[in-house]
């Protein structure tokens, strides 16, 4: 749960973020005054209907796009571009197809001169084990299923030990059974590593299952409707009453 201490700098502060696009029909307000914090170690989901600017917000937080107004800061420092402080995981995996599983996971470590090759190998093996892919170190992405590709992408993002793991509908392209498995694994990894996770999804059930807090967005313009705490003990079961109550509450907020 979030530590409510105003003197402490949050891991992520999204402050008054707005984004305006120019289109043929004139300017479009994609995001308007989006403000919320994510505390260190917290798991926060962003949900909202399609067109609410979730992906735009993801890209702004990741430093891939600049906001028109407002700022995003990580541990008090403004984000001005992508970098190893932010681990990105996309729905479409975006693995490097010419690299093996181990090569993908080790990619970020090769860019930091602080680790020697022995240490790097050890770290890569650790991460490959963490995501349950031992035995597939030398496989190329083309030989992996969607679920396995996403595990590689997760391990690759974790390799550089980012302050924030930013995930954009990471389980949106896999089948229901794999999705459930990946959600459980992600929670295990989160518990094990204590990472701060900001997770974009359109799946309300996924948000209730995973998050400490859920940021519900509304569209036209994309904005924060409400931030909902999910106070349910983990592991969470969707047949529990509390799960159903939260689920319904979020659904109502989205459909409002």
């Amino acid at each position, binding site marked *: 749960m979030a530590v409510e201490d105003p003197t402490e700098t949050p891991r992520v502060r999204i402050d008054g973020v707005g984004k305006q696009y120019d289109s043929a029909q004139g300017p479009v307000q994609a995001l308007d005054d989006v403000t919320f914090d994510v505390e260190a170690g917290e798991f926060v989901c962003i949900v909202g209907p399609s067109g609410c600017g979730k992906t735009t917000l993801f890209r702004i937080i990741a430093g891939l796009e600049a906001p028109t107004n407002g700022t995003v800061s990580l541990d008090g420092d403004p984000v001005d571009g*992508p970098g190893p402080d932010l681990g990105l995981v996309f729905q479409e995996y975006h693995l490097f197809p*010419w690299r093996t599983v181990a090569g993908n996971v080790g990619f970020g470590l090769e*860019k930091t001169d602080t680790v020697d090759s022995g240490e790097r190998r050890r770290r890569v093996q650790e991460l490959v*084990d963490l995501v349950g892919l031992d035995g597939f170190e030398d496989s190329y992405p083309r*030989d992996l*299923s969607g679920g396995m590709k996403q595990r590689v992408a997760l391990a690759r*993002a974790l390799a550089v030990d980012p302050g924030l793991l930013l995930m954009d509908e990471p389980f949106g392209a896999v089948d229901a059974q794999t999705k459930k498995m990946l959600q459980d694994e992600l929670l295990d990894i989160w518990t094990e590593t204590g990472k701060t996770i900001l997770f974009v999804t359109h799946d309300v059930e996924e948000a209730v299952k995973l998050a400490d807090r859920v940021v519900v967005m509304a569209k036209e313009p994309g904005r924060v409707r409400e931030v909902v705490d999910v106070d349910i003990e983990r592991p969470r079961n969707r047949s529990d009453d509390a799960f159903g109550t939260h689920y319904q509450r979020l659904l109502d907020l989205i459909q409002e």
Partner: protein
Amino acid sequence: MAIDVTEEVDHTDDTVAGALADIDPQRALRGTAGLLAFVVVWWLASLAQPSYVLPSPVAVGATFYTEATSGGMLTALWNSTLHWVPGAFFGTGLGIAAGVALAWSPLLDDLTSPVVRVLRPVPPLALIGFAIAWVGINHAGAAFIIAIGAFWINFYATYGGVEGVSEDLLDVARSLGVQGDLELIKAVVLPAALPEITTGIRTGIGRCWMLVVASEIFGVAGIGRRILRASNNLQVDVVITYILVLSLMFLLVDVAFRTLQRRALAWR
């Protein structure tokens, strides 16, 4: 974590199976049959012609043997290689470098695009005058002509490949700490564009063998020179012999390069 992921693997064929599939016995058989039929048609056609119009396959075979054993063929081949190698090497290298630079930098692309459009349609042969004036009637002059041919093929292949590199992969690389143009090109752009780049190299080295003939028009010794001289003397058997030499060289280099290419692109 105990997760069984084995069942999730797609068992697509690996490289060894891929290589073996290339030697399909049925295809090989048909190919041999087609080749034989071609030689038979050639032989039949040659029966009704004088040998300075179309010599028979047997006559060409005899000439091939004579040329091969007299050392004439080896000399011609060696001379052609002396400008084919540097021409292909520098043309390919510069073409790839220019393709990467212009596809990567919009500024460079804008600056050079009018010049590129003017120069592109110029056939390498039209530049023989420059080759003679700037470099001279020697291996370097012939290499210059060959290099021009290789340059454009590699330039466009690389340009297309680099343009097609996914922005998302670049974003991922940046988020993993890759900084600066050179680093991104090395870590992402070149490997991602490698299929297109190697296809360009392969097409280019084939084109270079064709340009060997053209590049020797102004008097540099080699296979092309030999073909041109034999043409003037109506020695059609010699012409065909050296055309065969060119084809065999092309085949040899192409197979060798394709093997390298397959190894480099094993991930596909």
